[in-house]
């Protein structure tokens, strides 16, 4: 087809459209995430020892780290769906944030260490269950971000997908942290971190293909 022919076809196909709004997308992801949290808590899943947990610095570390990662990740992800934005720099910021969170966790671990053996503290059976639940709980935010990524025009699909995966998983882990009664920083770093890393890598492998344009 000639360029003139193509332009004629594109003009004939023109329909009014509403320009993409990053604010609206952020709002929708925020509402979906909060709705999920509300439904999860309404189902009576909150940990029974919440009153004591709120006294623990590691509980707040877990909650604040995951909320910050999730919120930052969602903002970075949605902005990366614009063709004028390269997500590489933002990805580095997100990695730095994860590094800071783990460092704070390590400091808490050192100051509050019980002296128990590392393997016993990891409690792998609980850990695997936690990982699977985090993966399940990350689905709504992950699905919505994937939808917006497909609709948008990300120019670096692999980096955007990595951010989407990390953001969705961090949100899933945040929701789950209201239920999970493990506050040991080593456990959180290993299993929550493992879930976030696994979902981010899976998203990088799958979403970057699904969202090509």
């Amino acid at each position, binding site marked *: *087809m000639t*360029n003139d022919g193509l332009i004629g076809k594109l003009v004939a196909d*023109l329909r009014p459209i509403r320009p993409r709004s990053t604010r609206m997308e952020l709002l929708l992801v925020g509402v979906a995430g909060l709705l999920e949290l509300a439904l999860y808590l309404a189902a009576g899943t909150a940990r029974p020892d919440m009153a004591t947990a709120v006294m623990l610095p590691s509980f707040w570390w877990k909650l604040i780290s995951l909320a910050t990662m999730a919120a930052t990740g969602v903002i970075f992800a949605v902005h990366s769906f614009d063709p004028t934005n390269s997500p*590489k720099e933002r990805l580095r910021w997100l990695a730095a944030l994860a590094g800071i969170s783990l460092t704070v966790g390590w400091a808490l671990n050192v100051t509050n260490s019980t002296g128990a053996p590392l393997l016993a503290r990891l409690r792998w059976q609980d850990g695997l269950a936690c990982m699977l639940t985090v993966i399940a709980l990350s689905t709504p935010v992950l699905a919505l971000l994937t939808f917006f990524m497909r609709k948008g025009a990300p120019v670096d699909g692999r980096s955007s997908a990595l951010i989407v995966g990390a953001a969705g998983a961090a949100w899933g882990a945040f929701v789950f942290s209201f239920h999970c009664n493990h506050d040991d920083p080593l456990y959180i770093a290993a299993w929550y971190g493992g879930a976030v890393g696994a979902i981010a890598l899976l998203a990088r492998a799958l979403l970057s293909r699904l969202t090509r344009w």
Partner: protein
Amino acid sequence: MKDHDNWGGLMAAAQAGHGGAYRRLLEEVRHWLKRYLSRRLPSSLVEDTVQEVLIAIHEKRHTYDPRRPFQPWLAGVARYKWIDTLRRMSRGAATVLSEDLAVGDHVNETMNAELLERLMAELKPAQADVIRLVKIQGYSIEEASIRTRQSSSLVKVNIHRGMARLSKIIEKQAYDE
């Protein structure tokens, strides 16, 4: 990059469904794209890629924010499609690993000599040598094998890996620009 403020206005009108504005925008943009892509691709691929960018502009026009300049948006879309074409070229180079893979390649059309030498410096010497011989100077795999004392299979593997690496370097440089 020359400022084309009016393009933003035309796209905003197109988003509202104004066909005349859209036609004018696409016709003007087409010339810009041709210049942009001619500097980056073999001439045989320019027209096809221009059309791919025009289709991408159409399909992704809702991602343009009328409050912002149009040129960076257009450049983002054009660069994405340019890289897409480079990837396909690289895949093509990887699949044609037959004995007569040599000759007739477009590498020398794509990049100027200085840029090519700079890129070649990023490769392992064994990869750069066989790419120079086979893809640029037109030697056959066997001739390159004798000259470099690499087996024929190794020559093919080194061309394949070297081309893939070149493609990644170009892609990275494009994103970092």
